[in-house]
């Protein structure tokens, strides 16, 4: 666990640092490989930046909206750089909505956009799990496995590393197998979703902390399973849908 990197008088929060690196690597991959998915890298980049900026702004607005009375007489803290004043769920919803609006306005095919986003998401997920490892959050259950790590008073499964490793494997698969223009748009994204959700369901078993339980069931696993169901249904549907004339033309 290494939550802070101290460089002289400067203290860098390691989790945020790793996340930023993941974001930059993801953006780079997205830029370089956008042509594989028959999308314009500039437009995708724009959608991503607008989505990110809206997510940050939305996360702050959503947080303030949740606790308006706390900000009375302290309006300046609305502009605080403290990341604890962000609502991640609200930010995610607003960011995704903004990116979706840009994509729709630019008349980019939604499925092709999601396909090109897989590389970005793969890098971001890997960095997210590594950032959790650095902060010590999302730690594993107690184990006597030889590869267990000593954390929070016990030897535990390094579950964040399992997830990060699988995120990188899935990213590698997308990089190697995605360059095929014969697949209908959306298949790469849906295959990415199915594999990501599958390893998340599997590895959440080894996680100690997390969302509350419903009758002993882990909410996270149930949510992942429902998303997996949706992804598989869409995958089966997309696989039998013949490509439109426009898609045929863009795929050359």
């Amino acid at each position: 666990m290494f939550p802070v990197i101290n460089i002289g008088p400067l203290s860098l929060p390691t989790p945020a640092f790793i996340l930023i690196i993941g974001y930059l690597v993801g953006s780079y991959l997205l830029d370089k490989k956008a042509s594989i998915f028959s999308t314009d890298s500039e437009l995708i980049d724009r959608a991503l930046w607008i989505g990110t900026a809206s997510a940050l702004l939305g996360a702050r607005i959503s947080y303030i909206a949740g606790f308006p009375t706390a900000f009375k007489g302290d309006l300046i803290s609305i502009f605080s750089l403290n990341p604890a004043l962000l609502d991640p769920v609200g930010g995610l919803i607003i960011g995704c909505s903004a990116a979706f609006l840009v994509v729709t306005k630019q008349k980019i095919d939604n499925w092709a956009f999601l396909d090109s986003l897989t590389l970005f998401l793969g890098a971001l997920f890997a960095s997210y799990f590594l950032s959790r490892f650095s902060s010590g959050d999302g730690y594993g259950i107690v184990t006597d496995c030889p590869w267990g790590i000593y954390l929070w008073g016990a030897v535990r499964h390094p579950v964040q590393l399992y997830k990060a490793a699988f995120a990188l494997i899935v990213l590698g698969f997308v990089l190697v197998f995605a360059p095929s223009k014969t697949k209908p748009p959306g298949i790469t994204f849906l295959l990415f979703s199915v594999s990501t959700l599958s390893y998340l369901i599997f590895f959440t078993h080894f996680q100690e902390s997390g969302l509350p339980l419903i009758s002993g069931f882990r909410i996270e696993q149930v949510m992942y399973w429902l998303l997996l169901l949706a992804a598989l249904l869409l995958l089966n549907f997309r696989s039998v849908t013949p490509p439109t004339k426009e898609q045929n033309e863009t795929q050359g």
Partner: protein
Amino acid sequence: MKTYLNNLRIPLSAAILAAGLFWISFSRLPVDINPDATVEAAQVGFLAPDFNLSSLDSQEIGLLDLKGKPVILNFWASWCPPCKAEMPAFEQAFQEYQATDLQIIAINATDQDSQSDVSRFIQQHGITFPIPLDSTGSVSRDYLIHSLPTTYFIDKNGVIKEIIIGGPIPISLLRIQANQLLSD
């Protein structure tokens, strides 16, 4: 080959979903059991490590003595600019929540500070909440303090609910966290 794979698509999807359901039920946990809440560690969900320290006026302050009351525990030093910047917010919160059970304590990392600087800072800024002195750095080590300021939000059962590394923390955030601790 492609037709063969296409024929397998639906059974394969069903198998993945069934395996997922099996694994979810296999991962089921006993309800209302949080084993971490009995172990001391400087992490959310665990018991906050206990300490006993003296303040500048030789008053003994221990975490166990505050059991039953929510605690905001800040680590700071007088040479640290964000620590100094957030102290007025902590003082304001201390005044606002004085009538409640909420306790605000700011442990000074005295092993990397000087008592005279601490004393001068407290007087200059009119700090009235308890400032215990961690002269040996043992409490900072127990709380894995890598960077100053760091603030722990501890519920009335002594369980850490939130950790904020860095600052300055605005008064609005202190109010939100304080209200959540008091409503738990």
